[in-house]
């Protein structure tokens, strides 16, 4: 109903609707659109990097531009593509999985999105204002503090904005899962995707402040003449690395755990079996998250921390392999004895197992400190983390998209194109990155603009570049598939995959209030239970009644815009006094919006019982 209504509205009305929406499903879509766009941008940067490295001493782009490319590729892919795409899936699906009508703080949800988007735009504006950040996505001091121009300033402000957005999202999900589960949905009945969203939100809550602090110090060093990282003035440059990785390593788990969660749901659905070892899976997730905070310094084995620290962090890192292994084996045993359907969502999930296992293997290998003295900062490490991030996270996002596309957009993605995407991307991925393990050991450090002739690195790099083109082809096919599906795709029923969890109990796409009556959950895989007992649909836990809904609001957009403008003020006040107008003006808009939000009563509105009754099931 609501969907049909939107289609008849004009463009301006739709735009206004999305600018002001506080509906978790629409915000989820916004995250997916924005994340998708940044993913293409990051992919383009990756292609430029690979073309530059197609042959020795290539001159496709200059050294300075190359450094901007690698910096923006990493930053974009992590903060502006992988994170929002996952947040999009969480937003769109998690409330449905726990039987909630929305997230706990719809306004905050919208604010989180706009902060992220303006942060992402901020970062990319730098391309047009004299050069993007160029000191690597890790921005190690003092390279980052000494980097000329304003590139790194954009990095600082852009990440600060989008990081704040992510932090809000995390807190919101935490409260939602704690407070808004449907009757009967106990913690140990939550689907694994909801569990991982929960655990990841805790990680966000504790990890992002470390980044915020680091960025603040960097901001003061660069813009206000502080010397936190300036050795000559008594500062310490290594502190940045600690702050960055105290955030950065949990970040890896923030990315991979949601993927683990959705793979668990997908394996279970398409093998028609309950997840094997559910309890073990939950505790393995928690254990990974806990250990994830204890291992940051394995990124710093060569910094010179001494043998005691290196040994401790090596062993802690190896320990993570245990819960990860538990997960792999439980997935295999979920499939074992099942009735396995292989479609595109399942292909990505099945492709994930060998790919991610390889990434995990090399993870243990780089954990061995003395071996890491060779791997560190070489293409071996590049290969390792792409096996984890692409083979785990990107495969996960694509699996999740193919799986939940019907629920989110109401149409089923084309299977043939889905399979073509998978195979080209999968082959391209291994072609690109497998050889890089050897390139690293053969003496190719990472972030090398050129590699010299006659160093035995030519063939490997050529193969790697060819693989990258396969991956690009796969992504293009996926884009065509998405457009084709939007125009001509098959309309999705409520439950196209014979699903097990609550999101499949309501129509595709769901009405804006989600559940007309909150469902009564009677166990793990609640929908499956009802199907097995012959009812096929959820028992309501409440009588039909008025539903309280929040009003949309433009304030989150305006507030984020204010901070966005203020960020330019912060950056340019080092050169021009006129920038203070932007600084104070932007802050006034941002803080003013907060004031309006605090003072204005907004009680939302009710959908009456009668209206609900009029709407068909």
């Amino acid at each position, binding site marked *: 109903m609501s969907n049909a209504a939107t289609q008849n509205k004009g463009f301006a009305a739709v735009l206004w609707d999305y600018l002001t929406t506080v509906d978790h499903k629409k915000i989820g879509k916004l995250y997916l659109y924005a994340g998708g766009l940044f993913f293409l941008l990051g992919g383009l940067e990756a292609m430029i990097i690979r073309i530059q490295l197609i042959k020795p001493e290539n001159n496709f782009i200059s050294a300075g531009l190359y450094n901007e490319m690698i910096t923006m590729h990493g930053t974009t892919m992590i903060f502006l593509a992988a994170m929002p795409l996952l947040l999009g899936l969480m937003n769109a699906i998690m409330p449905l999985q726990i039987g909630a009508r929305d997230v706990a703080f719809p306004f905050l949800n919208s604010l989180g999105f706009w902060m992220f988007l303006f942060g992402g735009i901020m970062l990319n504006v730098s391309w047009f204002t004299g050069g993007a950040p160029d000191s690597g996505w890790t921005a*190690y001091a003092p390279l980052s503090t000494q980097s000329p121009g304003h590139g790194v300033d954009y990095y600082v402000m852009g990440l600060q904005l989008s990081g704040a957005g992510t932090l809000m999202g995390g807190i919101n999900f935490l409260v939602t899962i704690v407070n808004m589960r449907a009757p009967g949905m106990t913690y140990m009945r939550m689907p694994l995707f909801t569990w991982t969203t929960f655990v990841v939100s805790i990680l966000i809550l504790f990890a992002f402040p470390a980044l915020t602090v680091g960025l603040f110090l960097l901001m003061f060093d660069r813009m206000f003449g502080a010397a936190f990282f300036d050795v000559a003035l008594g500062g310490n440059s290594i502190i940045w690395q600690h702050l960055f990785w105290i955030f950065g390593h949990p970040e890896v788990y923030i990315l991979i755990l949601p993927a683990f969660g959705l793979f668990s749901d997908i394996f279970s659905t398409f093998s028609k079996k309950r997840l094997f070892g559910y309890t*073990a899976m939950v505790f393995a997730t928690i254990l990974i998250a806990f250990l994830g905070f204890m291992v940051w310094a394995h990124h710093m084995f060569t910094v010179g921390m001494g043998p005691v620290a290196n040994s401790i962090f090596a062993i802690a890192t190896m320990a993570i392999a*245990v819960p990860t292994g538990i997960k792999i*084996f439980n997935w295999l045993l979920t499939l074992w004895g099942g009735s396995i359907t*292989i479609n595109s969502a399942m292909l990505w999930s099945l492709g994930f197992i060998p790919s991610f296992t390889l990434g995990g293997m090399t993870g243990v290998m780089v954990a061995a*400190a003395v071996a*890491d*003295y060779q791997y560190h900062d070489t293409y071996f490490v590049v290969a390792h983390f792409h096996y984890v991030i692409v083979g785990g996270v990107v495969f996960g996002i694509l699996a999740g998209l193919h799986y939940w596309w019907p629920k989110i957009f109401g149409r089923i993605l084309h299977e043939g194109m889905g399979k073509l995407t998978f195979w080209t991307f999968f082959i391209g991925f291994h072609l690109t990155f497998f050889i890089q393990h050897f390139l690293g050991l*053969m003496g190719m450090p990472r972030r090398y603009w*050129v590699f010299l002739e006659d160093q035995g690195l030519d063939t490997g790099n050529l193969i790697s570049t060819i693989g990258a083109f396969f991956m690009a082809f796969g992504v293009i096919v996926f884009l065509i598939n998405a457009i084709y599906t939007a125009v001509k795709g098959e309309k999705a029923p409520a439950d196209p995959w014979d699903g097990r969890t609550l999101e499949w109990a309501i129509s595709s796409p769901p009405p804006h209030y989600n559940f007309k009556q909150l469902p009564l959950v009677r166990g793990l895989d609640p929908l499956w239970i009802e199907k097995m007992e012959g009812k096929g649909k959820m028992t309501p836990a409440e009588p039909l009644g008025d539903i309280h809904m929040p009003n949309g609001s433009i304030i989150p957009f305006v507030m984020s815009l204010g901070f966005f403008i203020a960020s330019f003020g912060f950056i340019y006040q080092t050169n021009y006094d006129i920038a203070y107008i932007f600084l104070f003006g932007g802050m006034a808009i941002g803080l003013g919006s907060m004031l309006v939000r605090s003072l204005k009563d907004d009680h939302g509105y009710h959908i009456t019982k009668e209206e609900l009754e009029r709407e068909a099931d």
Partner: protein
Amino acid sequence: MLGWMGKFRALFLLGSLALVLSGCGKENLTALVPKGYGAESSMDLIILTTVIMLFVFAVVMVIYVITLIRFRKKKGQEDYIPKQVEGNQTLETVWTVIPILLLIIIAVPTVLATFDLADETDAKDSININVTGNQYWWHFDYAGEEIQTSQDLYIPVGEKVYLNMLSSDVIHSLWVPSLSGKMDVNPENENTMYIEAYEEGVYWGKCAEFCGPSHSLMDFKIVVVSPEEYETWIADMQNVDPEQEPQDTVALEGQALFEENNCMACHAIGSSPVATGPNLTNFGDRSRLAGIKELTKDNLVDWLQDPETIKPGNKMTGKYPALSDEDADAIAEYLLQLQPSDITPESAGN
């Protein structure tokens, strides 16, 4: 007499040898053919972890393949509902305990090797070299010998050589894959590592920590010579007279131009604390120009006239007036004849 079988076999052996060699990368650069103590320690762990991890991978893949073949939905099974298994305590225990045991097998040698490589008790009695990392070149100061060089580091074979490393600007990382793993060169907190080479030769070194536009062009060499040759080289370097005038007139003019253009403000010839730019005492003996280019007069003239194109972001660009072809040629002539020793990368088996 070699029959066709023998010829074939020889060819086959040669071919596979070439394949193996190229598969492991370039000799004296690749970490896969270790020729020093550190690289060997790393390689032992690399092999151990690879073998154990490949075993784990094999187990996963066997279960994976069998599962996919046996349990894929077949025709006529559309309505089949598999048994809903909750889990299995014994299995969970098995795949928790076995990985822990495997990890202990990896962890013990890892810790031992970590402490072993950090053992610096004999540093005082060994050769100590103070290394400074700079954007984008390396400065080597032989402690107590009054010798400074850059780009080429001469060390004796079979001896522990301690490198005490500090950066003058941003973080660098010294890496000679065939001899040893890397160690960061920070602006604070001097880091120490040692190198012990097993074989004479010239080894490629690289900067492994992202340090700016020319990060990929910060190559250097470690020239490993016999202990006798090392002594000779030390003596040769100590006997350099920086004031010595070259024989041929063009070089003599070059020397004058070198002074005229105030090159000495940054570049020392002979022992000197000046280290703003690379020390040029044995410039003519260098294995490479600027660490990367072949050391020819043409390349040197190009470098003198436009270093920016060769090494973007270097600190030499714009520090001296533009040089005419003739002037650059003369300076190049002068620099190339700075060859104080017969012990060179070439003699070490370049």
